Each structure stands twice: as structure tokens, then as C-alpha cells.
């Protein structure tokens, strides 16, 4: 027993947080699956399980940009959108080629991730040259541009291959093909491939990627840049390369989350991934604690479920949500509460020291 204890003590801080993060997700998965099997979870909540998983992956990925890279992104839903529609198109194209649902989902998620990664590269190069609020507004602008472009995109498939156009479905010139993406009406006739299990696996994958990234050489360089860009540059860390790497990893994960999300519905529109969605995810990250992955997961679950739990108050629920949001921010950030917290902490530590000294005397 003591050997195990000492072994645990010897594990470094990072490994412990990693184990903590994975085990929380796995335990939650087992508990929820069991409850679901015994029919203890009502329909309105079990329908939310996959979206929650998608939002958790989104929040983990945004935490990489906001928490570890330290850049405010207001257009993260844009990457989700790129991934979602790339994934939907891929799945639709492969419908006859790959009969296995699971395999098709995996291929679509990878494809969504790749396309979102490419978008991240294209957007990251200009955006990461800017600073602070200007960077934030440009990510917002890119998010809106992506939404607008996908809103005008028409994609169909027939025997001769994939048709892509920007005017109308008739202009594609298809003969008895299938419509995949119909402009403002969005993607229609999606085969539902996502499941709660797939969502949890994606969360674990995202955790694996982000936690390992943060503790890698690149990740340390990224946090160094966040803490002091000029100092980091002066010790030979190339800003653009590391920033871009983190940004693209974040975009890829967001794209994958988008595929998971889209594959849970029979149709999806580009308007779903607008500025408000980006903001929603940012709220999850900030309330969960920037750079704190476990906090992000908990905050996402709680905040996503809050409107559901407040359903009986119907009209007032979003109002309550807004008030809760403001109060939490005021309580955690205002000067007065900080002072009160410090005083309490001071008292607590004083007591502890006193006890320790007393204990020492007894021995």
C-alpha cells in the first residue's frame, strides 16, 4: 500500500491532472450510460448528450487558443462549421463506398478535422500577426465570412461526381442526383451517425491531444509566448510558428466537434454556427477557467444543462441564465470579493500553521 502511495506521489503534476481529466470523463460516461440503460434519464436530456459532447470538445479546443495561447478568438464556431459541412459532404459521398456506419463516421470526422485545419492555417497566418482586441475582431469577421459563404454554397452528388456551385441547385446541372447542401436551407437528409459513445471517445481524443500538446516542447513554447511574447522571442522562440501550430490544432479539434454535432441531426444550417455560438463556447471556457481543462468540461456541462434544468421557468430561463452569468463574473473577478477571499485564505492558513505548531509540540 505504501509503495503505491509513494508511486502516486512520485508521479508528476501533469500526469496527475491527466489521470484526473480522463477518469472524470470515463466515470461520467459509465454513470450516464447505466442511467440511460435503466431509463432514468428523460428524453429531453438524453437528446442533449451528443451536443454536450460536441460542445465539450469545442470548449477544450477553444481553451487551447484562449487559455494556453492567450489569444481571444470570437469566431471559433466558424471552424466548427467548416468541419461540420465537410464531414457531412464526406459522409454523404461515401454512403455507398463504406457501408459500416462507424467507419464512415471516423472518416468523416477526420475529413472535417482536415478541412477545419486548412481553414485554421489560412485564417491563422493573417490573424496571428495582430494583437489583442484587433485579433478578436478579425476572428469574429472570419467566423461571419465562413457562415456567409456556406450559406450560399450548393453541393450535390450524382453518378458523374460531386457538383459545387454558389448560385442555385438548378445551376449545378445534375441529372437525378442527390442534394447534399442546399444554400440557406443547409445540409439536408443527413444520416445520423453520431452516438454518445462516439462523443465520449472524441472527448478523450481531444483531451489526449490537448494535454499532450500542452506538456510538449511546443506547448511550453506556446505558454511562454502567452506569458511574455517579447521575452519568449528573445530566447529564440519563433512566435508565428508556435502560435500557428496551436491555432491549427485548436481548429482541427473544433472541426471534429462540428462533424460530431452535425451528424446528430437530420439537417443542419450554417446559421447555427454564428457569432452567438462562438460566444457561448467562450463563456464555457472563461467560466471553466482559462487553461483549466477539467474546469472547462464541468462548466460546459453545467452551463449547457442550465437552460434545460430551468425549463419549468420557461420564459424566464434565459433571463436567469444571463443574471447567473453576470453574478458569477462579478463574484469571481471584482476587487471586493478578491479582498474577502484573501482575508479568508489568510485566516485559514494562519489556523493551519498554528495547528501544525501545536502538533509539533505534542510530539
Amino acid at each position, binding site marked *: 500500500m505504501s509503495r503505491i502511495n509513494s508511486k502516486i506521489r512520485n508521479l508528476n503534476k501533469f500526469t496527475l491532472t491527466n489521470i484526473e481529466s480522463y477518469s472524470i470523463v470515463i466515470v461520467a460516461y459509465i454513470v450516464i450510460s447505466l442511467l440511460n440503460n435503466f431509463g432514468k434519464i428523460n428524453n429531453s436530456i438524453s437528446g442533449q448528450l451528443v451536443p454536450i459532447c460536441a460542445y465539450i470538445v469545442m470548449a477544450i479546443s477553444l481553451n487551447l487558443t*484562449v487559455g494556453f495561447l492567450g489569444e481571444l478568438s470570437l469566431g471559433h464556431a466558424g471552424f466548427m462549421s467548416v468541419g461540420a459541412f465537410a464531414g457531412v459532404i464526406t459522409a454523404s459521398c461515401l454512403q455507398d463506398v463504406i457501408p459500416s456506419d462507424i467507419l464512415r463516421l471516423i472518416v468523416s470526422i477526420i475529413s472535417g478535422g482536415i478541412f477545419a485545419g486548412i481553414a485554421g492555417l489560412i485564417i491563422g497566418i493573417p490573424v496571428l500577426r*495582430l494583437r489583442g482586441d484587433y485579433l478578436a*475582431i478579425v476572428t469574429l469577421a472570419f467566423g461571419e465570412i465562413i457562415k456567409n459563404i456556406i450559406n450560399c454554397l450548393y453541393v450535390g452528388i450524382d453518378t458523374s461526381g460531386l457538383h459545387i456551385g454558389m448560385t442555385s441547385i438548378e445551376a449545378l446541372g445534375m441529372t437525378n442526383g442527390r442534394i447534399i447542401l442546399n444554400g440557406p436551407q443547409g445540409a439536408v437528409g443527413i444520416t445520423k451517425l453520431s452516438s454518445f459513445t462516439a462523443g465520449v471517445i472524441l472527448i478523450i481524443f481531444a483531451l489526449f491531444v490537448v494535454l499532450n500538446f500542452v506538456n510538449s516542447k511546443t506547448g511550453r513554447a506556446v505558454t511562454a509566448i502567452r506569458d511574455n511574447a517579447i521575452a519568449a522571442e528573445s530566447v529564440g522562440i519563433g512566435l508565428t510558428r508556435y502560435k500557428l501550430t496551436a491555432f491549427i490544432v485548436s481548429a482541427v479539434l473544433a472541426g471534429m466537434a462540428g462533424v460530431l454535432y452535425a451528424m446528430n441531426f437530420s439537417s443542419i444550417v450554417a446559421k447555427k454556427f454564428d457569432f452567438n455560438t462562438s460566444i457561448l463556447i467562450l463563456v464555457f471556457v472563461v467560466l471553466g477557467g482559462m487553461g483549466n481543462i477539467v474546469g472547462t468540461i464541468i462548466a460546459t456541462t453545467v452551463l449547457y444543462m442550465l437552460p434545460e434544468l430551468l425549463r419549468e421557468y420557461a420564459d424566464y430561463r434565459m433571463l436567469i441564465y*444571463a443574471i447567473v452569468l*453576470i453574478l458569477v463574473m462579478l463574484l*469571481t*473577478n471584482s476587487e471586493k470579493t478578491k479582498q474577502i477571499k484573501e482575508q479568508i485564505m489568510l485566516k485559514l492558513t494562519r489556523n493551519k500553521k498554528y495547528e501544525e505548531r501545536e502538533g509539533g509540540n505534542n510530539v
Partner: protein
Amino acid sequence: MTFISNLISGISLGSVYAIIALGYTMVYGIAKMLNFAHGDVIMVGAYISFCASTYLHLPPIVSIVIAMIVCTILGIVIEGLAYRPLRRASSLAVLITAIGVSYFLQNAALLIWGSTPMTFSSVVGFDSIPLFDGGLIVTSESIVTVIACIIIMICLTLFTQKTRIGKGMRAVSEDKDAAELMGINVNVTISITFAIGSALAAIAGVLLCSAYPILTPTTGSMPGIKAFTAAVFGGIGSIPGAMLGGILLGIIEIFSKSYISTELSDAIVFAVLILVLLIKPTGLLGKKMTEKV
């Protein structure tokens, strides 16, 4: 002729953006925060004016004044309750609080006025003016909007340059602590800034809904985002910059709507913004930022 007509509607829409952007830019200049709730103050202003003229049958000018008073009070209350305790908190915390306030205003409006769109009747009393034998019609709303915008611009410039309070505002925006040492009441100055910004938002709301007469609880959010873009475009923190940015944005939006594509017009507006920021990272008239180690 369509070119001139487009240009006029562009300038008119741009003037509304400019008035909203002034609110953003003043608050940013002084409190260094992105006030995302500003767009929703516009919506509140439009609703108040709507109620005053529809249910109380007040003349348009009185309803605008009432809307301005309500929005001014609203602005001061928001600042005092939500933003003042976070004066020294991280900018992200303030941003999230502003988003919370924005949600709050939208949902409060939803509870009070419902989600059914209301048809706003124009506050402008006279008819449109036909020029060149009816070849070019200048709407009365656009004339009033542009004139209002110019008057506001001149008044604000004079206010910040000449008056004591205006000078205090500029001092606070330069250096809050130094301004306080010079005997300027920073809290009062910031409250005044919010009051002015919100009063302008009320005017913008009424003008916006006179030109585009559909009023819902989310009416303010898209013009809010665009005006914010306009403020950044012209260089955030600069009053002439907000004006220039707003008008240019309006013109670009109307032109891309009529010559390129209606659906893609927003994308084009944002693409121009990105281009400008890449060439001039602090906006058209923005101050150069110096980097301290």
C-alpha cells in the same frame, strides 16, 4: 443614377453605423472595454420610442427624447452595476460580463415585448424628395439620418475638445491613474461616457428602425456587430475614425449588395475590414501602439 441612389443609401446606412460606432469607440477609448451590450441598448431605445409613439400617441420628437432619457439611465445603471466592480479585472472577464448584460437585455425585451416583430413607423414627418424628374428619389429618412450624424459629430468633437468634462474624458483615456491624481473623478467621467454613448444608441435605434422598420428583441445585435466593426475599421478610440469607418462600411455594404451579391454582402464587408487591419493594424485613423517591454 442607380449609382448615386446607392451612394445615398450607403451614406445613410453608414451614418447610422457611425452613430452606433461612436458609442463603442468612446467607451473603448475610456474604459478600454468592448461593450457588447451596446447593440442591445439600440434595441431598447427603438422599443421605448415605439411604445411612446404607438401607445401614448406622443409626437416623434418627444418619443425620441424619452428613448434617449431611458437609454441614458440604462447605460449608467449597467455601468454602475456590472462594469464598475470589474474596473481592474482582466479584459476577458469584462467582455463576458458585457455578453451577460447583452443576453439580459435581449431576454428582458423578449419578456416585455414578445418575439413577434413590430412594425416601426418612421419618425420623419416629411415626404421623400424626388430629383431629376423622379429619376432619383432621396428618402426623407436618409436626409434626417445624415444631418443627425453630422450634428452629433460636430457636437461631440466640440464637447471633447472644449469643455471641462470632455477634457477630463480625454485625460482618463490617456491615463486613468494620472487623471485621478489631477483631480478628475474617474468614475463620474466613465459614467458620463456611458450616458452619452447610450443616448446616441437611442437615436441610432430610432433612425435605424425608421429606415428598416422591423423591430424584434434581436434587432440591435447585427447592426451592433457591424458598428463595432466600423469602429475598429476607423481605428477604435478615435471619434473621427468611428465616423469615417461607419460611413465607409455603409457604402461598401450597399454597393456589394447591389452590384455583387445580396447574400455575400456581409462577407465582403468583413473581408474589407480584414484587409484594412492587415495593412494598417490599428485601423484607418487609429493611434500607433507602442510596445513596452
